[in-house]
């Protein structure tokens, strides 16, 4: 019985060991160069294990998930990345968020094809992120 329980826990511990970053970018009406550059920027922040970026027109929403043990650095990572992207593309309206809500919704938006819907959703998410109460 004890062995069985231990066997059950082994995969749980091993999952935590994977070091891969999953970074996905989707954009409507954006050039490929920007996409690659932004992907590199997210990849360069070592604390991030999952990043999703949605680009529509001149709005950019980046949802990052920071590694569990580095959770206390979350806001710093967020700010650093936001500054980096803003400096490189001053014309873009950027929001970098480490919020789980953003992660969840952007994952869904990756498969969405309708660009007006994506634009609306990005706007909605940005206003949600500003909510304080």
């Amino acid at each position, binding site marked *: 019985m004890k062995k069985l329980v231990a066997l059950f826990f082994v995969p749980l511990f091993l999952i935590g060991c994977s070091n891969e970053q999953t970074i996905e970018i989707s954009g409507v009406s954006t050039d490929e160069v920007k996409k690659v550059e932004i992907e590199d920027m997210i990849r360069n922040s070592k604390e991030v294990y999952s990043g999703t970026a949605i680009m529509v027109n001149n709005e950019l929403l980046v949802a990052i998930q920071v590694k569990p043990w580095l959770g206390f650095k979350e806001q710093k990572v967020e700010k650093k990345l936001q500054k980096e992207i803003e400096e490189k593309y001053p014309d873009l309206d950027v929001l970098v968020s480490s*919020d*789980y*809500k*953003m992660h*969840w919704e952007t994952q869904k938006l990756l498969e969405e094809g309708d660009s007006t819907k994506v634009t609306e959703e990005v706007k909605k998410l940005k206003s*949600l*992120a500003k*909510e*304080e*109460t």
Partner: protein
Amino acid sequence: MDPQEYQQIEQKITPPTPYFKNALKAFLVGGIICTIGQAITYLYIIFFDFTDKTAGNATVATMVFIAMVLTGLGLYRKLGAFAGAGSAVPVTGFGNAVVSAAIEGRTEGWVLGVGSNMFKLAGSVILFGVGSAFFIALIKLILVSMGVVEW
């Protein structure tokens, strides 16, 4: 028999308190309660328009509500007897303290019974909670105006 002798005998007869077992029970039950809370947080984030920041309030309200219903049904008492601090320290313990005190005062009428007893235990939690929150906010305000940290 003098008092010292009595105490010696008493200590011999009393079974040893299972500290380790109690701590383990409290750890497990407290952990399970927190896991349920985390699940509720994700539920609010995924199915409603809550973010990490705003889901906390809704989660606390839900957990307290669940604890209140369980207390009314007499189930939280059983959990408390089993887990001790594990069921009292999470926010559910607050709901339990409010409702159980209200139930206790029921026989003395609505105003003097329920009304005055309701916050008998929880009142001090609220008082010191609000008090310490005020002082921490004050410290943060000072640090922010000195430029040490940001909001």
